[in-house]
């Protein structure tokens, strides 16, 4: 009875692992990850980045004298 239960457990475990690997293989072999990223995720992110509000850096003043000149070898 006990042996039978352990056997069933391992059979089930083997079945789950096999199914998981089969699914992974399908994703891998048919490049489903690449297709999802190219056709869905990237266009979504591009849209987000295109619409992002950005600072207009050209409005920053260019203070050339704000920091020292860092000359160390001049006596």
């Amino acid at each position, binding site marked *: 009875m006990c042996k039978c239960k352990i056997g069933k457990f391992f059979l089930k475990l083997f079945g789950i692992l096999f199914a998981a690997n089969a699914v992974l293989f399908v994703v891998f072999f048919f490049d489903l990850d690449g297709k999802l990223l190219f056709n869905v995720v*990237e266009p979504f992110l591009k849209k*987000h980045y295109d619409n992002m509000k950005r*600072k207009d850096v050209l409005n920053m003043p260019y203070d050339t004298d704000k*920091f020292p000149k860092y000359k160390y070898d001049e006596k």
Partner: protein
Amino acid sequence: MAKKKMTKALRDFWYGKPHSAEEGGRRLGEILEDKTQLYKHREWRGVKDTFYYMYMIWGYNYVHMVTDILKYSNNPIDFFKGTWRYRWMGQTYLPVIHWFDRGLQGMRGEALRASAWHYRAMVSASIQQICNFFNGDTRLHGGKQNDAYWHTFLAKETTCGTLFYPWMDAGYQYVPIEMIPYFVTCHVNSHTVLNYIDAAQSIGLPGDPCPMCQAEAGIYVLDDVPDCAPFVITCNEACDGSVGTAILQDWFIDKPLFALPLPMQFDDPLVKQYCMREIEECWKFIEEQTGVPFDFDCMVKYLERQNKLQRDEWEKWDVAAKTDYYPVNGVAQALFRIFSTQYGIQGDFWEENSEKVKKIMYKCVEKKINPFPQTRHRVIAWSCAPLYYSNWCTWAYNCWGLNTIINMDSLMFDMEFRTDSYEHMLEDMATYHMWAPMRRMAVGGMHHIFELWDYMERFNCDMVAMYDQLQCKGMQGVHGLFEDEFRKRNVKAFWMPHALPDCRTVSRAEIRGYINDYMTTVMHEEPLDPSLLDFDDSMTW
């Protein structure tokens, strides 16, 4: 007849289809979708190699991309916040596995395994750099300047990472500013950089300088650089276009900045003295900014590790030069060298993966395994490569049997540091600094540019792939001289025009067209895999 067919089908299933058309080959071009180059289905490389690819490359790298984030990030949530904030991050990180696919297409056995380990090191190093960016980024931490912010050095990407070793044990990290937002994106997803090139031109800057300089300026124009360090070190990358970029960076970064020039003239003892003084000034600047003194012992410790990595590379090059048993393909070798020399020793990923590759290589030597059995020509690739098509050499091997044995990119920093005294170390540091990327053998004077002939002999190459960066005024100046030398020396060479990061100027298809024309009209050869001659990959990453 049916039995023969069945035997061939079984052999193809077990070992994968043979390479060449004559043997009823694999026709790699037919498994890819038009334009996007996504796989209709991935390549069947035989039972062993297909499952190696699935578990040890595809699955292994997906898993390690996550574990690397957990390893290098102070807070993994920052990684997601950064992905949402920065275009170069979101668009680049996604297709990493496709980057492996492009570089490893058609590879089998030891070539597949060794080349993939080089890629693994680069991905790990890139994730570490990304985490260094985000750990201290005030934009991701509500404007707060945290401990990581005060322990990060920001420097222009062609400033050598070795300069910062003296502060490594004090907990400082070095980030080459444009390495991830610009350089890595071009290789992994060539679409991203176009936004930055266009941004630079949108503020009225001319479109004819080097597109690298434009893109590096463009990431600032689009305000797409993390604010992760209290000061910055720039250099001129030995090019006037980059001087312009550094001026814009000085404006937009608005922090204490030290300009560390690469002298335009080198191999001159007086200029070298000047360069050594400049480096010492840079170290004083860092001491002043951080309040932490220069640590020579720490410098020696990291330089010794770098020297070991260099010696490993010499071992590999020796096998590449003298035998047919070198298992790393052209793109994996070149990028590994550029990535590792620019990042410097900031983790153990270079050494670990280099050891793995050496182990595979010595297996090939001992068992006399030729990892590239269809090699027709041993090619040396010279000058600066197209970043959006660095995997051209994988295609060239699969289509024509052109095996890129060595690249100029790999040879740029062909030296060890002396660590016996401060004076020797400083002298070598100046040499290393002056041998910057795209410098020594690109705009570094005739002596170095024409080192090509010596390396061609040393690596037993019979053909030159001559890159022609159309927007590099320096290299355009020597185009004719190379033409003359190729004729005079009777060297087989083909030119590959490109625009470094910008795939719109010369497309990948055009580059393949130039090589196809050369191989048919000059060499009168037939392709190994005709399905790879002409295809549309205009939309690919």
